[in-house]
């Protein structure tokens, strides 16, 4: 799997101030039947963007200029809660969204973002609200990942926290499995020997039909 490196990003931001936008809103379950990972952008927020008969809802932010192709989302608390479906992140990526800023995130969604080169930024609710107001006025945000800074005209730069390993992986576009196998192949083998001694019944499934 190739992951696009993330260093810095400048663009307008779509504001979705609603709280608890769950993964079912981001990517409705019925589209989970699609087995591809790419090309899911059109399904992102599908039922918010389209009426039941397929008409665009003009009031939804991602249907409005200039936010149609916004690479950044400024969202409400608990964004991406609910199911573990990674399609929620792939659908955002499919629309070119590389960064989501919110007061808090659903835990699995949050982890899935990093795995796919999407940067989730957690900021205090008051800062998110100010960013949302500027975003709604059409302001451009610059996310500087190496410097861990969000810059936008109209307010002082905001710094954000990120775990060093996640930052490094994002900047380099590293695939998690490759990193892990390279660094810990030996540890895994050593552990298996020890584990087999304690719970041997977990290593006998090969013998079963």
């Amino acid at each position, binding site marked *: *799997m190739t992951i696009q490196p993330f260093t810095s990003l400048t663009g307008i931001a779509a504001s979705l101030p609603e*709280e*608890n936008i*769950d993964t*079912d*809103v981001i990517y*409705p*379950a*019925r589209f*989970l*039947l*699609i*087995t*591809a*990972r790419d090309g899911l952008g059109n399904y992102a927020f599908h*039922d918010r963007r389209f009426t*039941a008969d397929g008409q665009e809802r003009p009031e939804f932010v991602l249907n409005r200029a200039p936010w149609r192709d916004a690479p950044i989302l400024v969202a409400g*608390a*608990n964004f991406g*809660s*609910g*199911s*573990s*479906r*990674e399609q929620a*992140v792939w659908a955002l990526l499919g629309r070119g969204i590389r960064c989501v800023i919110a007061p808090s995130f659903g*835990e*699995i969604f949050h*982890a*899935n973002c990093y*795995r*796919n080169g999407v940067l989730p930024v957690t900021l205090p609710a008051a800062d998110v609200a100010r960013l949302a107001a500027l975003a709604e006025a059409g302001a451009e945000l610059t996310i500087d990942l190496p410097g861990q800074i969000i810059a936008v005209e109209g307010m002082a730069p905001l710094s954000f926290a990120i*775990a*060093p*390993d*996640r930052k490094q992986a994002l900047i380099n576009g590293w*695939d*998690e*499995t*490759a990193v*892990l*196998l390279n660094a*810990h192949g030996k*540890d*895994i083998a050593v*552990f*298996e020997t020890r*584990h087999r001694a*304690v*719970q*041997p*019944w*977990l290593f*006998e*499934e*090969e013998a*079963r039909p």
Partner: protein
Amino acid sequence: MTAPQTLYDKLWHSHAVAELPTGETLLYIDRHLVHEVSSPQAFASLRAAGRRLRRPRTHLAVADHAVPTRQRGGDIADPLARAQVAELEENAAAFDVPYRALTGDGQGIVHVIGPESGFTLPGITLVCGDSHTTTHGAFGALAFGIGASECGTVMAAQCLKQRKARTMRVELVGTLPAHVTAKDVALAFIAKVGALGAQGHAVEYAGPAVEAMSMAARMTLCNMTIEAGGRIGLVAPDDTTFAYLRGRPMAPRGSRWDQAVAYWRTLRTDVGAGYDKQVTLDLAGIAPHVSWGTSPDEALPITATIPDPAAIADDSARRHAEKALAYMDLKPGTPLEQVAIQRVFIGSCTNGRIEDLRAAAEVVRGRTVAAGVQAIVVPGSTQTRQQAEAEGLDSIFTAAGFEWRHAGCSMCVAMNDDRLAPGERCASTSNRNFEGRQGPGGRTHLMSPAMAAAAGIAGHLIDVRKLLS
């Protein structure tokens, strides 16, 4: 002497491969359940990188989410679902992963067949690309849902990077009143702590009321932990656990069984071990619960009325309630028992086990589904379906006007053709009442199997105890 440890600590430490500089742990994964929806991309990533599975036979694959439940055998009508199931079958064959055929006796919802087969065992780590993997914690297994990329990592490396959670002890005391079930306890617990109340925590359910619960009840409880935000639910394994597992096809046998049980008995929280959070719930006064909103924590005793958002102090809860009531088309002050329903769904990994079907059948026996209500029973596994048929439960349901279906996730997630029409209201034994979860515009009320059965008979939400006493 080592410091006293919680059950979670023990499971965690016994699977720690390496401590990473980031504060995360590389955790060894013993078992992985694979289904058609979250696995295609993982297999694709293996192919792209030229990787094999490290231990193919520690995985178990089955199609459950998208499969039709009206009939088994023959082609699946929906081309997308057909392709998805075919892809799982091909991937399983290509990568030597054991596969439970759709038409075979071993098919069913991942979280039902794992325990049923003895694939789920105490003391293991178990993952699946599905958030209700919390279910398996009922056996004292460290079980949690993961994303599709992680599925690929587990396949290739048998490991995952994880950050240790905080711990929360939920002490259940008192005796459950008649016809009040683990589902009601789960809904009451989630309503009490909120949809984020257990976020970041591994939840251990303990206390006399948990010890008295069957495995089915413990699974229901652990299953719903994710609806309180917790990725891990746990119950310490005990004689009830061992009695359930003994003789299951994939459980250890002979001297290995005795050796395993001896080890499993050590999987208890030590006296003096501390938790980050403690909650006590007295079950004695609990009434059957139903959800009224679009978040699982928006649930109340059936004896209550629809709440008035204006009376909710917390800003975000109030806004959510207002939106929920608009979506659910409900008015504050309406008694819950006056809410009319058009559909009933009995099934899912929360409440699709034989015990659940028995409880629903007890309510349904000799009664008839209300006019205008369409009710379906979808067993959680093919084995459960066969068991129910052997007990004659299917004829109780069909005589009352329920449809008797084949096993799958069905209307829990509405990925097959079992779904609500816009505006339809459903009494459902599943786990999520999110907007559109059971079909776009559909309205879900979560409840126990007995309560859902009673709603089907009455045509509206009703306290099942009125029908049974």
